[in-house]
C-alpha cells in the first residue's frame, strides 16, 4: 500500500517479487481489518496519496511518542509495551481504519514534530500534543480528542504558598521551574513567570524527579499527567496550582498527508459516537476530583455594582516573545497577544472590544476564543474583526456569567517604537449595555534590534527564499535562523568554555595526585586511587551528572548548578587524566630514575625535576585530546538544566521546529575543537622531532678554538657528528625549523 510498495513494484526487480509483495500486502490488509466497512481502511482507497493517504509501513499506523506521559502514554513498570489512554485510543482508531497500530521506540518530545514534518519514519505523533497555531504552521492536527490544562507541582511544604500567590512565590530568579522542552507548560511559564529560571527537560518525569530532590522549585506540565504522577509515584509532591489553559490535544500528522488527517478524524468521530472514547476516559482517568486545587487565574473578588451591570475582571494580558532567539517582545512584527478576563455579568457578554495604543495593529490577525467554566471548556464560537489598533470580537452566544474568557490573537503587532502597552477596551452585555474594560497590566515591548533587522532583511531576500525552498537547506542551514542562533547561543557557548576552563586546572591537579597515588609504594593508597579511577572511568559521565545533580540536593547539599557542573566535569576528567599521567610516568625509562638516584636525588626530587617534566611533554597531546572530550561533554549538562550551548540550541530548535540551531551549536563546538585538534598534531610532530634530535638547534660556535683545552675536543666534532640529516649550520635555516 502506498508509495513505498508501488515504487518498489515499479523498480527493476523481477515481476514475481512484485506479485508476491502485492499478495503479502493484501493479506496484511485483510488480517488488519476487523471491520471491512470502515472508511479509509480499504486497499483501493489507500492506493495513492491523491485520493487516500500514504503510510510509512503498509497496513500499519506507525505512531511516535515520547512515552513519558502517564497515564496517556508510558511504559508500565518493568515493561517494554507502551500503555495508556492515548495508546488505547490510537489502537482503537487504527482498528477503525483497518490498520494495525505500531509504536516506534520513544522519541524526545521536541523531536516528534520535526520527525513527522520530515516524514518517512512515522505516520502520526501522539504525545499530549496541544493544538496551537504555532504548531499548525508546521504540521496538521486532527480534531481534538481530549481537553486539558496545565498543572504546577511543588513539594508539599511550599504548595500552599504557591497556591496563595503563585507569582510572588515563583516569579523570582531564585525559583527554578522545570518544564518539558517544547510543551505548552514551557510556553505558559515563559509568558507568565518571566523572572523565574526556566529549565527545559526532555520529559515531565525528569521534572518531577528534580522537584522531589529539591533541584527545582516547581514543575509545570499537563495537569492530568501531573495529577496521575503525584497520586501514584511522587507522593511527596502536590499539584499546587492548576492553570486553566483550556488546551486540547490532537494527533500530529504531516501537512503533506491530508488524507490521513481526514481518515483519522473520521475514526476519532466514530470512537466518539460508539462510546469508545468515553470508555477509555473512564478507564484511565476515572473521576478526577481537582476541586481542592487552587486555580491560577481566578480573578480576585467579583464586585458586582449596584446597577446590575456587572463587570469583566481582566486577569491577564501578555504577549508571546517574538525576538528571534531571544525573549523580548518586539514592536512592529507579528506576535501573539493573550488576554484573559472573567465575566461577572448576569446576562453574559456578547462582544468585547480590545484597544491597544496607537501604532499597534490587529490587521491580518486571527483570534482563538477559549471559554472556561472552572477547568472545563465551553463551546463558544465568535467572529473577530480587526480595525487597526482595535479588535472587535463578538460571540455567537453570550459568554456566561462566571466563566473565564481567553482571547489569543495571533499575528498582531505592537507599536514599532516599543514601550509599555496597555490593553483597554469595552464590552457589551447580553442585554446590550456597554461597559468599560479595566486596563490590563502593561506589556513591555521593545523596538527593533539590529539582529532582528538583519533577520527581517534576510526574510526579504529572493535568494534566501530560493535557498529555503530546498527542504534540506531550509531544515539545516536556514540563514535567518543561523543569524539568530549565533546570537542566541553565545551565552551557552561562553558557559561551556567557563565550565571546562574552570574544571580543567582542578582536573589536572587531581589527576596528577591520583596518578602518583596509583604508583605509590603503599598498597592502601594504590587501592584508593584504583577505586577512584575505575569507578569514574567505568561509569558514564551522564550517570555521574545525574547522581550529583539529583543526589546531592536530597542530602540537603545545594550547590549552584554551574559550580556543580564544574565539579562533576573536573572529577570525571581527573580520573582519565590520572591514567594518562600514570601511563606517562611509567613510560619514562628506568634509566632516568637510576641516573637521578646516582646523583643523590631523593624520590621527590627525581619525580619533581626529572620525571614529571618529561611526562608533561609526553602527555600534552593526550591531555589536549581529553580536554576536547571534556569540552564536548559539557553538553551532557543540558540534561540537568545547566544553561550551556546544547540547552540553548535545544530550546531554539524546539521553538522553531528547525535543526539549524544545532548546526550553529556545532559551529561553536568546532571553533574550539578544530584548532585544538590541530595543536595536538603539531605538538605530536614536535615531540617526535625532538626525540629524534630534529628540533631547532641553539647557536653553536663553529669551532675556531672556542672549545675547552681537553684532548678530544679538536677532532671530536668531525668524527662525532650527530646522526641527523641537518647540517651543523642549522641556525642558517632556523626559520624553516621554527615553522615545524
Amino acid at each position: 500500500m502506498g508509495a513505498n510498495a508501488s515504487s518498489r513494484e515499479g523498480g527493476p526487480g523481477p515481476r514475481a517479487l512484485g506479485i508476491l509483495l502485492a499478495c503479502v500486502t493484501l493479506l496484511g490488509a485483510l488480517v488488519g481489518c476487523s471491520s471491512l466497512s470502515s472508511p479509509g481502511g480499504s486497499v483501493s482507497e489507500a492506493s495513492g496519496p491523491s485520493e487516500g493517504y500514504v503510510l510509512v509501513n503498509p497496513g500499519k499506523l506507525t505512531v511516535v511518542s515520547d512515552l513519558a506521559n502517564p497515564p496517556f502514554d508510558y511504559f508500565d513498570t518493568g515493561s517494554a509495551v507502551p500503555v495508556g489512554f492515548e495508546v488505547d485510543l490510537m489502537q482503537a482508531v487504527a482498528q477503525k481504519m483497518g490498520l494495525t497500530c505500531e509504536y516506534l521506540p520513544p522519541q524526545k518530545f521536541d523531536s516528534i514534530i520535526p520527525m513527522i514534518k520530515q516524514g518517512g519514519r512515522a505516520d502520526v505523533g501522539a504525545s499530549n500534543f496541544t493544538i496551537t497555531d504555532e504548531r499548525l504552521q508546521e504540521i496538521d492536527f486532527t480534531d481534538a480528542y481530549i481537553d486539558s490544562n496545565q498543572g504546577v507541582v511543588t513539594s508539599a511544604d511550599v504548595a500552599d504558598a504557591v497556591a496563595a500567590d503563585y507569582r510572588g512565590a515563583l516569579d523570582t530568579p531564585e525559583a527554578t521551574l522545570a518544564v518539558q522542552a517544547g510543551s505548552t507548560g514551557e510556553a505558559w511559564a515563559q509568558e507568565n513567570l518571566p523572572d523565574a529560571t526556566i529549565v527545559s527537560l526532555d520529559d515531565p518525569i525528569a521534572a518531577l524527579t528534580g522537584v522531589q530532590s529539591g533541584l527545582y522549585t516547581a514543575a509545570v506540565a499537563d495537569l492530568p499527567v501531573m495529577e496521575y504522577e503525584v497520586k501514584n509515584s511522587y507522593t511527596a509532591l502536590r499539584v499546587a496550582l492548576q492553570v486553566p489553559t483550556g488546551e486540547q490535544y490532537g494527533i500530529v500528522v504531516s501537512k503533506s498527508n491530508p488524507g490521513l488527517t481526514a481518515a483519522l478524524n473520521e475514526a476519532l468521530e466514530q470512537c466518539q459516537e460508539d462510546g469508545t472514547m468515553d470508555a477509555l476516559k473512564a478507564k484511565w482517568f476515572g473521576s478526577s476530583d481537582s476541586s481542592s486545587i487552587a486555580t491560577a487565574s481566578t480573578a480576585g473578588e467579583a464586585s458586582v455594582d449596584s446597577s446590575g451591570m456587572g463587570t469583566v475582571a481582566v486577569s491577564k494580558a501578555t504577549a508571546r516573545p517574538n525576538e528571534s532567539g531571544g525573549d523580548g517582545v518586539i514592536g512592529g512584527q507579528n506576535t501573539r497577544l493573550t488576554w484573559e478576563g472573567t465575566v461577572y455579568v448576569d446576562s453574559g457578554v456578547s462582544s468585547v472590544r480590545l484597544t491597544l495604543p496607537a501604532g499597534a495593529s490587529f490587521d491580518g490577525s486571527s483570534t482563538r476564543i477559549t471559554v472556561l467554566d472552572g477547568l472545563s471548556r465551553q463551546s463558544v464560537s465568535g467572529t473577530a474583526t480587526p480595525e487597526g489598533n482595535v479588535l472587535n470580537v463578538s460571540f455567537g452566544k453570550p459568554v456566561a456569567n462566571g466563566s473565564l474568557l481567553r482571547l489569543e490573537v495571533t499575528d498582531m503587532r505592537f507599536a514599532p517604537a516599543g514601550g509599555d502597552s496597555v490593553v483597554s477596551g469595552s464590552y457589551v452585555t447580553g442585554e446590550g449595555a456597554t461597559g468599560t474594560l479595566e486596563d490590563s497590566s502593561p506589556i513591555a515591548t521593545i523596538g527593533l534590534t539590529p539582529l532582528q533587522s538583519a533577520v527581517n532583511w534576510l526574510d526579504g531576500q529572493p535568494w534566501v527564499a530560493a535557498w529555503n525552498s530546498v527542504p534540506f537547506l531550509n531544515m539545516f542551514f536556514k540563514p535567518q535562523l543561523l543569524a539568530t542562533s549565533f546570537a542566541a547561543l553565545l551565552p551557552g557557548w561562553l558557559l561551556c568554555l567557563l565550565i571546562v576552563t574552570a574544571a580543567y586546572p582542578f582536573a589536572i591537579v587531581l589527576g596528577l595526585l591520583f596518578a602518583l597515588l596509583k604508583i605509590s609504594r603503599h598498597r592502601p593508597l594504590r587501592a584508593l586511587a584504583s577505586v577512584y579511577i575505575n569507578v569514574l572511568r567505568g561509569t558514564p559521565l551522564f550517570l555521574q551528572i545525574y547522581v550529583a545533580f539529583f543526589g546531592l540536593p536530597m542530602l540537603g547539599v545545594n550547590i549552584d548548578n554551574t559550580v556543580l557542573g564544574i565539579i562533576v566535569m573536573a572529577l570525571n576528567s581527573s580520573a582519565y587524566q590520572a591514567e594518562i599521567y600514570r601511563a606517562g610516568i611509567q613510560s619514562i625509562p628506568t634509566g632516568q630514575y637510576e641516573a637521578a638516584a646516582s646523583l643523590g636525588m631523593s624520590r621527590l626530587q627525581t619525580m619533581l625535576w626529572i620525571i614529571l617534566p618529561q611526562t608533561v611533554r609526553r602527555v600534552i597531546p593526550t591531555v589536549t585530546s581529553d580536554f576536547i572530550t571534556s569540552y564536548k561533554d559539557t553538553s551532557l549538562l543540558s540534561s540537568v538544566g545547566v544553561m550551556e550551548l546544547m540547552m540553548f540550541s535545544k530550546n531554539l530548535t524546539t521553538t522553531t521546529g528547525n535543526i539549524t540551531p544545532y548546526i550553529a551549536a556545532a559551529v561553536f563546538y568546532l571553533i574550539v575543537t578544530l584548532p585544538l585538534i590541530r595543536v595536538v598534531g603539531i605538538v605530536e610532530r614536535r615531540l617526535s622531532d625532538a626525540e629524534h634530535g630534529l628540533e631547532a638547534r641553539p647557536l653553536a660556535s663553529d669551532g675556531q678554538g672556542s672549545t675547552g683545552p681537553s684532548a678530544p675536543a679538536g677532532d671530536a666534532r668531525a668524527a662525532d657528528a650527530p646522526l641527523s640529516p641537518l647540517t651543523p649550520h642549522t641556525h642558517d635555516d632556523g626559520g624553516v625549523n621554527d615553522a615545524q
Partner: protein
Amino acid sequence: MHSKNRPCAADVPPAMDAEKAARLAFAHDLPLSRHHFVEGEHPVVRIEHLGKTFTDTPVLRDVNLNVWNGEIVVVLGPSGSGKSTMLRCINLLETPTQGHVLIRDQEITGASGASLSLLRRDLGMVFQQFNLFPHLSAKENVVIGQMKVLKKSRAEAEAEAMRQLAAVGLADRAEFKPPQLSGGQQQRVAIARAVAMHPKVLLFDEPTSALDPELVRDVLAVMRDLALNGDMAMIVVTHEMGFAREVADRVVFMEGGVVVEQGLPNDVFDHPKEARTKEFLGSIG
C-alpha cells in the same frame, strides 16, 4: 647499620670492624695494585661477601673487593659474569641479597631515604645508555644535580658545569639537548655530569659498549684524562683491554659471580694464574 633487606643474613658474618678490615685489606691488596698505599688508610669502598640472586638465578656469590682512594680498578669478565650487577650493588641500584657494601666505612646496604641519598653523593655513575635527561640541555644536565642535591647557587653550578663540559670538549654544545648530540657526545656530557658532583668514587658501567667504534676513542680519552689527572677512585666495567692495561691500577677478573683473579694489569694480562682468566683473555685476544 645492618641491612634489612638481606633474606639470609644469618649465613653471612656481620660487617667487620673498620680498623681490622682496613688492616686485612691493606695486606691483601698491597701487591695487587699500582695504587700508592699510605700506611693506615682505609678503603673507600669495601665489598664483603656480596651476593645477589634474581628470583632463582644467582648472579653474584660471595664477592669480596676493596677499592682505595683514587685507585683505578678495571673489572673484566665475560658477559653474565656479574660485573655490572656488582657495580650496581655498590650504589644500591640493585639490592644485594646478601653481604655488605661500605662506603668510607659507612654501610650502604640496607640504607634508604635520606641516608641513602647522602651516601650516593660519594658515588658517581656513568651508564652504558648514558641516561642523560632529555628535557634538559647539556649544561642543565650538569647543573641540576649540583643545585638540587649539593644546593649550590645557579651561578656556581653553571660555572662548574661549563668547566666540566670544557674538560670533556663540549663547551660549545652546552645549550644542545641530548637528542641533538651524538652518542659519544652524550656519554661525555654524562661523565661531566657525574664528575661535577665531585664524588669519591666514579662507577663506569660499560661506558663505551653502546657507542659506534669511531666514537669510543673520544670517550676513552676523557676517561684516561680523568684517571691520570683526577683524584677520584674509578671502578670501570669494560671490555676495552687497551684501556685496562694502560690506565688501571688493578685489574679484576670476574666470572660466574665471583672474583676469579685480580692483580696488576701486566701480571693479569701477561701471566694469568687462573685457567679461566687465560681462556677469557685468549678468546678476546
